[in-house]
């Protein structure tokens, strides 16, 4: 089985490939190839044909996204390419693995993506907590400049690109691409209204593409091996490539693995994560991070691709799942998530800013045994009113996904809390002290 993204990642504790080592393994060949003989439109087309879908969670065709950037005569002035490395989704650590494991792969992907849209300035927007990654990226960008892969007239092609590392201050909002742009401009990380889309009016009002780290890491391999090859890596139709899947929770071997797009949840949990820890049963799964709907053990044979998960009523999201076991209180679990979302609301629009803290408090109240039937109705109401379109961006609708599915699949647990006026799970004792 081919693992293009992680093939050169060394075991934990060892430093990643230097530029020289990376080149020895065929690194930057895609940049040479593209700059020597593929037009920007050619790169765009290859990526479009490869079926690569955005790995940040939205699952939009990457080549298609690029195609909205004004090119040629329509384009005037600077364009930007930004790597979204602000990995803040709870339970998600795949981009960290890629950046720490092979920073040059990301840089190469960024150069290719920037070339494809003819951007001349690029940024890595990195989560503040990824300090080691920051250090590696800083060195690697420097190496790439020294080797002539960045800067003026790259490899004599006439194409120039600068790259900067920007570390955030730790806001979940910055994962939202328009809030990221505001943050990068030094403004508050509040989302922007669309239209205009960043492809037209992005960073500093200029055409901009924001891509996820994993998405960008796929680009060199598509350019090297072609769209058809990339497509063939996948087990799913229309969704090319491999995917970094992750599992966290009470499984035997939590971690992240590069697997063909479209493996089943069962394979992921049972084969790669080693199944549930002894004494714990699987109660539910957040398939793609904290902002996706719960699925249950009934859904284990569903393929982990955008289309299949979505038809099961959830989202692939980042593809890094969080497993809920049967000894953990689902109310407390969801409360913990809502605490996070309420905290990370940027405070721009009313429903999110005021609704999420209310939801969080109701959940805590239920967990403590003070809940009422009215509280359940209020939670239900929030899941409906904090839907897409009612709020300014997708944060609150995302927050409502685990809540609405918890109310659907774990209703009995909520009812028990209210009936027994306490949390039936033993680990919750601290709540009553």
């Amino acid at each position, binding site marked *: 089985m081919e693992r293009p993204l992680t093939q050169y990642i060394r075991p934990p504790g060892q430093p990643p490939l230097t530029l020289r080592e990376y080149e020895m393994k065929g690194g930057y060949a895609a940049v040479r190839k593209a700059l020597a003989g593929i037009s920007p439109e050619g790169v765009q087309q290859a990526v479009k044909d490869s079926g690569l879908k955005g790995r940040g969670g939205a699952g939009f065709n990457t080549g298609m996204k690029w195609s909205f950037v004004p090119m040629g005569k329509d384009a005037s002035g600077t364009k930007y390419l930004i790597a979204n490395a602000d990995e803040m989704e709870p339970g998600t650590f795949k981009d960290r693995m890629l950046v720490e494991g092979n920073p040059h792969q990301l840089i190469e992907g960024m150069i290719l993506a920037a070339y494809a849209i003819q951007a001349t300035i690029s940024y890595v927007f990195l989560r503040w907590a990824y300090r080691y990654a920051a250090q590696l990226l800083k060195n690697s960008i420097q190496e790439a400049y020294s080797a002539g892969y960045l800067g003026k007239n790259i490899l004599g092609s006439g194409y120039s690109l600068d790259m900067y590392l920007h570390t955030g201050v730790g*806001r979940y909002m910055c994962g939202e691409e328009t809030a990221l742009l505001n943050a990068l401009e030094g403004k508050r990380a509040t989302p922007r209204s669309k239209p205009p889309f960043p492809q037209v009016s992005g960073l500093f009002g200029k055409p901009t593409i924001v891509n996820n780290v994993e998405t960008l890491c796929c680009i060199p391999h598509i350019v090297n091996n072609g769209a058809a090859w990339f497509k063939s890596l996948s087990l799913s139709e229309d969704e090319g490539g491999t995917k970094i899947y992750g599992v966290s929770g009470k499984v035997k071997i939590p971690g992240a693995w590069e697997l063909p797009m479209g493996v089943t949840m069962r394979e992921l949990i049972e084969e790669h994560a080693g199944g549930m820890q002894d004494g714990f049963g699987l109660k539910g799964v957040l398939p793609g991070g904290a902002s996706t709907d719960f699925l249950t053990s009934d859904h284990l044979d569903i393929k982990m691709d955008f289309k299949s998960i979505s038809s099961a009523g959830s989202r692939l999201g980042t593809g890094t799942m969080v497993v809920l076991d049967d000894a953990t209180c689902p109310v407390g679990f969801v409360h913990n998530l809502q605490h996070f979302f309420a905290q990370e609301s940027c405070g721009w629009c009313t429903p999110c800013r005021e609704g999420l803290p209310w939801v969080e408090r109701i959940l805590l109240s239920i967990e403590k045994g003070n809940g009422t039937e009215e509280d359940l109705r209020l939670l239900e109401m929030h899941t409906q009113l904090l839907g897409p379109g009612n709020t300014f961006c997708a944060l609150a609708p995302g927050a409502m996904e685990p809540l609405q599915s918890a109310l659907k699949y774990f209703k009995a647990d909520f009812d028990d809390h209210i009936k027994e006026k306490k949390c039936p799970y033993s680990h919750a004792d601290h709540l009553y002290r």
Partner: protein
Amino acid sequence: MPTIYIDKKPYEVPAGKNLLEVCLSLGFDLPYFCWHPALGSVGACRQCAVKVFKDQEDTKGRLVMSCMETVKDGLYASVGDKAAKDFRAQIIEWLMTNHPHDCPVCDEGGSCHLQDMTVMTGHDYRRYHFKKRTYRNQYLGPLVHHEMNRCIQCYRCVRFYRDYAGGKDLDVFSAHNHVYFGREKDGVLQSPFSGNLVEVCPTGVFTDKTLKTHYTRKWDLTTAPSVCPHCSLGCNIIAGERYGALRNIVNRFNGEVNGYFLCDRGRYGYEFVNSPNRITQPLLRGRTVEAVDEGVLMEEVRNLLTRSQGVRSPGVVESQGMGSPAVGAPAPRTRLVGIGSPRASVESNFALMQLVGKENFYQGVTEDDAYLARRIVEVLASGTVHSASLKDIGSADAVLILGEDVWNTAPVMVLAVRQSVQNTAAAQAAQQLSLPVWNDLAIRQFVQDKKGFLANCTVAPSPLDEISGCTVHAAPDTIARLGFAIAHLLRPSLPEVAGLGEEEASKAATIARALESAKKPVVISGVSCCSDASIRAAYDIAAALDKADRPACIAYVLPECNSMGLAMMGAASVEAVVGAKGGGPAAVRGSEPDLTAIILENDLYRVLPEARADAFFDRCQKVIVLESLNNRTTAKADVLIPAATFAEGDGTFVNNEGRAQRFFQVFIPAIGPIRESWKWLRKIRSLLTAAANGHEPHPDQLLVELERSLPQFAGISGAAPSQDFRIHGEAIAREPHRYSGRTAMLANLSVSEPGPGQDGDSPLSFTMEGYQGIPPSPLIPFFWAPGWNSVQSVNKYQQEPGGPLRGGDPGRRLFEKRTALGEGDGKAAPGEGDWKVAPGEEDWKAAPGEGDWKVAPGGEDIFFKDIPEAFTVRQQKWLLLPDHLVFGSGELSVYTKALRELSPQPYVAISHNDALQLAAADGAVIRLITDQQEYPLPVKIIEGMSDGMVMVPAGLPEMPAMSWGAWVDLKMQTQEP
């Protein structure tokens, strides 16, 4: 016009608007918070949600925020849809989770947009039963009170303060439901527009701190439409009174003038009306206070004046109209002169002119000031270029400021200039993105730092510099020369400026190019740098730019609220009667024993250097002063007559644009016979003409007489409906129907309820009885509509939100640009006095406003060609120039304690180089020597100011009148003289 369907009914609506604006225009009560007509849409509060359907068949629809939805032909929307209504009510419940519900102790209670919207959505029961978050409030200075717990996070405050007004020290901090609007740390808000936060805030976070010291519920105020007396722009205000004290000032929307906003001098400068320094009763020199009543006063005045002029035959006076000494009357044994005032109304100045005769009436300003104002009147009256309203400036796409310190002399004009700069860039962005301009967030993100063209040429650096593409700091003559150079580039037939420096030439070229490529250029100048050359140069530029397809505008800033009205009367300056600067032998008391002076609302010690004012008073046999506040001039009065302030009287000011605007009496003063000066003067005149039949004239009559005797004022009587205007036979009520306590408020003094005051001068009544609907725009005493108790109710008074008031914005322009045919261009505001209230109701027709005054000939000849010599630094001499201050320079506004607190101490501002040369450190005391006087003052070094000049704060109460434009000496304290 697109047709849209709201709740299945078709409506024709203007294209390009958003659905919220359209719904409000159509009379739907749709709640909103973050949207503001002047600030645009950002979609933050989610309060204005409505349903939109794909087509007629779609029954499900989807929720959209109406403020973010552009209306398109065939749009199906529902305001009344249950899901939309429920969502709007839910938004309020969310906002209420942290709102303290302290309405009974909140200043906004009862006039609060949040209350109105809460009631509008039907939300009544809050299900949130957890703790609320609380904030620490900040000290924001003496003008604005901060109460953050009430905040509903609509973001309007920062959007106004930062984006609209360019302030920097108010910001939004923190995140999620801890979002905080305030300063980085406690401190005085730095923007001179901070008071607008009080009106922009939809609830009680930012409230008027001066109102707090004498608080009254807003519906308990007696209010009247008024005009700000604190600068020449004439911003429209609503002034409110209770218990005989003026309580607050709020904005009165006028789309052509101030729009939605005021400056802090205007908003807070009202406290002089309540000052203990007020003159509340007549005084006669040598008589005790108790001995003087109105009868005694009138007797004394009659004696004084008959002695000076002799009794004239009433018939002659009537026929002449102007009260010039009657033919055949006994030769006057003394000479009666009148000194007018730029801060007194047109009516009062004219009444004085009538009383003393045209040739004995003098403008109460120096010859220099009168000369500058005369130049401006000439230019505007020539009708060759359009006199710019503030709206014209706001919608310009290139602005040149030539020499005027707009920031300090006409603050609200700064907002207009900022609008021009921003709107120009926004309009380009909107076109490029195919988005509507009201989509504020999207437009700003695209615009970034791009700006429309502004060239700011001032003597000293100004906060406006940061938005100007081209900045010049130089001496007035240098600025004027730059102006003439620009004019020459635009019209090569105009003379070239000789000896222009390379840098100046390139700046002139940049500015000329920008103005030339603009569709609507505006040139701004004024009197603040005391240079007639810049006034002339500004005109030359505007006239050279003006073309049929690209009308150029010109705006001049003047010193006082009625400087324009006074200048238009064409009288000589006060120096013509006092004696010119340094000219003539020193006057000796008694050398001209027959001079009797009537001084109208003017402190001559603020106009003339002390010695000259003293000399003048020494020459006068008798001095009659009409004034509202005691000052050094009133101390010289033999007869002191208590004059009404703007709040206690009716009158008309002509603003810098040439717009005549009526202000109406707010209340009848509780103590003393305080009356408008014109009323006193007319009374005095009737004594002399023996026509004292007890009939007092009202302002309309006075204005008609003015139009007859000074045709340049033609149309001024049409500025507002006349005193006999009624709707359904009713006067317009000054008090809202919610006014409380009328029968009880004086019950502690007397149980018998005093009768209501009568107003014979205007169509307004002093009670809550009267017409409560929407009156003609000049007569709006307050904004209120059912369900809209806050200032937001102004929407209901407008043709469309943000648009002009129904029936046209108030005011009557006295200058109109002439077309080739010599006709006005028909842009006269409220066209032919079309104050239609509703069909069938009484119409009010103004007298036709065809101003026909032409001072200077039109065409090529009007261009000014005399270019001043370049400014050169003199050895050991400095050019003395005024430094105007928003807070401090206003004669009346400093009576407000809070504004006094914000005004600086006197100083001497010099350039960095000059300070070095004089070995003067910042703050060191230096002696300024002028008019044989020495003033030891601390040095203020101004980076960016040119050498050879010295600026001293103008108009501070502790500073005497100075001879601006004189060459003065500066000596360090330690040096020997």
